[in-house]
């Protein structure tokens, strides 16, 4: 429970942080809230030699509206997202999801940037960001680039982020007004990661589903965007058959691991259950 030795750095600008990462190489990790990184260091599953703390970089803070996007600074904490009136109005699913992360102590320090950059399929934000078709803004030694959340995750802890890159911002397209949404997370207790979870966004007009998007948490070695499951809803009235088809399609793309929270088969089936329940709730919330 005691981490190996490391050097601590606290730059005050993105530029300096990137320069440090570039200079220190593989053994340097950005540090945000530390609530994913420090636990693995304490068990010595990770032993980075350098930590580059992003807490001193004020430009990484804040939640803003920019034309057709919401931009969330990487260092915005989960509790700041919960408290944001802007998100509550435009993207209430972020609030709903954030409230299901860890417990209040964790949410006070855990950041959106850390949550999505971590690459742990158990984190809740990545699947949501896939569902919302968010983009991640990355700054590295070769300049800036944007990567869609849907193209960011390669495997457990394996992402499109280069070692010298910092994720500076999460950019989310503003969804249609009156959309239905739900994040349904099955967990044993407060502070647990999901057994399975589903993020659902729906647009319904005249009783027919016009658009749908579904993301899945912790049921494969990456978060999943369940494209076929969402397609099973589009054009339907989201009746029982359509929901069952979506749930089945979602289950079909899972590849969960077995652990103390349940065997793989359970998690696969719980994917279907959470998808079904999320769709039902989202449908109730949508303006039809």
């Amino acid at each position: 429970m005691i981490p190996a030795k490391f050097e601590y750095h606290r730059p005050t600008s993105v530029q300096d942080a990137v320069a440090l990462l570039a200079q220190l190489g593989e053994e340097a990790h950005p540090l945000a809230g530390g609530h994913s990184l420090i636990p693995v260091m304490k068990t010595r599953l990770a032993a980075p030699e350098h930590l580059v703390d992003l807490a001193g970089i004020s430009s990484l803070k804040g939640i803003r509206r920019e034309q057709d996007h919401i931009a969330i600074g990487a260092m915005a904490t989960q509790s700041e997202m919960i408290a944001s009136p802007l998100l509550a109005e435009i993207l209430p699913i972020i609030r709903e999801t954030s409230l299901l992360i860890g417990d209040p102590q964790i949410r006070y320090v855990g950041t959106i940037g850390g949550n999505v950059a971590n690459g742990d399929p158990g984190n809740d934000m990545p699947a949501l960001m896939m569902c919302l078709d968010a983009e991640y803004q990355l700054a590295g030694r070769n300049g800036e680039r944007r990567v869609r959340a849907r193209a960011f995750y390669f495997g457990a802890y394996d992402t499109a982020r280069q070692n010298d890159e910092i994720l500076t911002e999460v950019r989310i397209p503003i969804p249609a007004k009156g959309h239905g949404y739900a994040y349904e997370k099955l967990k044993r207790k407060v502070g647990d990661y999901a057994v399975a979870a589903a993020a659902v966004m729906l647009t319904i007009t005249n009783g027919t589903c016009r658009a749908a998007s579904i993301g899945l948490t912790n049921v494969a070695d990456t978060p999943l965007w369940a494209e076929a499951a969402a397609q099973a809803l589009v054009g339907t009235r989201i009746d029982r058959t359509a929901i069952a088809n979506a749930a089945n399609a979602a289950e079909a793309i899972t590849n969960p691991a077995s652990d103390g929270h349940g065997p793989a088969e359970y998690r696969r089936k719980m994917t279907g259950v959470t998808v079904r329940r999320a769709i039902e709730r989202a449908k109730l919330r949508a303006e039809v």
Partner: protein
Amino acid sequence: MNDIAPTQAERAEKLQGLGCKRKRVEDIRFTQGRGNYVDDVKLPGMLFGDFARSSHAHARIKSIDTSKALALPGVKAVLTAADLKPLKLHYMPTLAGDVAAVLADEKVLFQNQEIAFVVAEDRYIAADAIELVEVEYEALPVVVDPFQAMAPDAPILRDDIKDKMNGAHGPRKHYNHIFNWQVGDKQATDEVFKTAEVTTKDLFVYQRTHPAPLETCQCVASMDKVKGELTVWGTFQAPHVVRTVVSILSGIAEHKVHVIAPDIGGGFGNKVGVYPGYVCAIVASIVLGVPVKWVEDRMENLSTTSFARDYHMATELAATKEGKILAMRVHMLADHGAFDACANPSKLPAGFVNICTGSYDIPVAHLEVDGVYTNKATGGVAYRCSLRVTEGIYAIERAIEVLAKKLGMDSVDLRMKNLIKAEQFPYRSALGWEYDSGNYHVALQKALDAVGYPALRAEQKARREAFRRGETRELMGIGVCFFTEIVGAGPSRHCDILGVGMFDSAEIRVHPTGSIVARMGTKSQGQAHETTYAQIIATELGIPADDITIEEGDTDTAPYGLGTYGSRSTPVAGAATAMAARKIRAKAQMIAAHLLEVSEYDLEWDVDRFTVKGLPEKFKTMKEIAWAAHNNLPPGLEPGLEAVNYYDPPNMTYPFGAYFCVMDIDIDTGVAKTRRFYALDDCGTRINPMIIEGQVHGGLTEAFAIAMGQEISYDAQGNVMGASFMDFFLPTAVETPKWETDFTVTPSPHHPIGAKGVGESPNVGGVPCFSNAVNDAFAFLDAGHIQMPHDGWRLWTVAERLGLHA
């Protein structure tokens, strides 16, 4: 004299004695972060110890290379079995009559077993150094299933005792066998089963779990080489026993060993045993001559220091068609892990598990327990259950449900029919206990009325019909449990620890100004002894509880006692406290007689004073008497006002209770929601109702955790699964049901104040109640017995097996 004299009731209220919901005095410091725990002990020059542990569950150690660790700057020493061997300390005796390795000698027997103890200048260096200890293993076949441990071709686990076929509890049947323990009349029981109209037989598994106290196990050992004295601060539930053990092991005379248990952050049995960390810290301090601290981390706590349960109980009942239970027959397989280090009285290898006939008048019974070794961590402690009572009560309370179903009876009716009747007390059970007092039917009826039992069953019936019609995906379960606890170990004719009888003690000193310091041989770990013992004394001596300081845990000042576990503090040390107070009151009466110039027999006790019979205005208060005890005594009477009592209880006490649980299970996720939980406890005289309620809330929360999710499991290679709070289920306030508490009062006839103890009742009664609710939910689908823990995926698996997802 123009003030109106306070009434008797007002004077009594001022004392905050028995029955008062007095606020816990220790919470003033606990809630302000001012507790003083072992890890708060910081001594000049103190070093830190940490363990290199085994990655294998069963392996021969081919070599241990400590050179790299020793070369790390700041490392002062690295101990291995080779260093301890010359001191004969590589093994230590266990409370159960076995030995346990301090540091692995030639072999490791469970994952995370201690191999080397690194001592360094700080924790960080120690943590780095353990990574540098290089161990070469030769893997051996692993046994994790207790049923396989005694197979003819099972791997030999304990090379050190493989040929010793006579164990601490008699002959051993197999090299992996520890003991066979039998109680009751086998022949008569077998006869009944041959002819009984109805019989049941089930295997009830009570999974391995862990008490997981908030504070882990830790100690600081400090050897003063000049004085030749050793001081050990530690998380000890039984500090005096530790002192005796340390003295025996170290050869340091007992008066030169000082053991101090400061504030303890929860014990629940986990802090009864003596662990390698203590021994190594002590040896290191003796060798190096400086203080050495050892603090366990959470994973070490969950995976190495004492687990609880791991009992596999084949349970049979025989009854008439009308539901009169005729006999009980039980065979239990007890998985003790690599060493038999369970914390039971020496003569009772399975504790008080022979309470398993429960609250019922069962004419004959036979119980057989076999203990076996496996490649798992050692221990086997109470976990807030007095010495395996929870296992025994789980067996009978599940079996009753199974029998009721087979008979087509309501399980409450079956219980009513078989409960021991009030007039049968003192009641001698078929397995040898003498229940002191009880009024079971009254308690059960009160509980039935409180929960509205018939209405609940009617609701359940309607819901089951709705379920069959496909209108709901939830199953409603009603859990019932009527339990009898056995606490207050214990009479020295039954109970000893390493040969020391399980009495307990209190010493009370009244100061000249009428305030008091009192010390006991027990040790609170959160139970609020500082509050409740003072209340006992307040009522006995008429001194306000606020003027009484209670101290425990320092073996230099406290009288010898056997510590706190098994709900024994109130039954044993609480009794000693009342008895010591009574000695003081007897002397006070003599002094009062002297002061009032009357005969002792002309005085009567009146709340806080002695009054001359018939002349209420002529009195001496206890405060006045205390002063006189130091300057104005009757001729021949020695000065001072103090007393000591060592109390060897004549019997155990037998708290009991009736619990009900209402639960809804979502068959699509397997998630169970407890809608209602009602707990009626009868713990005899109630000293502090608020503390009782707190104890019941805590115990029920643990019971909920155990029944609904806790498990320390192992894979086939003996890797311990889930030894962190990521996996080990520790519910938060959000998941924890709301508790409704209630009570009846049936005092213990043999306890000086009639108190029985309560801390563990809710764990004993709660676990079967939850499990019965789950089993009841599925019972109409003929699911058969469903094993714990009842977490989501396991209940989903039951629903899957029953075809409910089709």
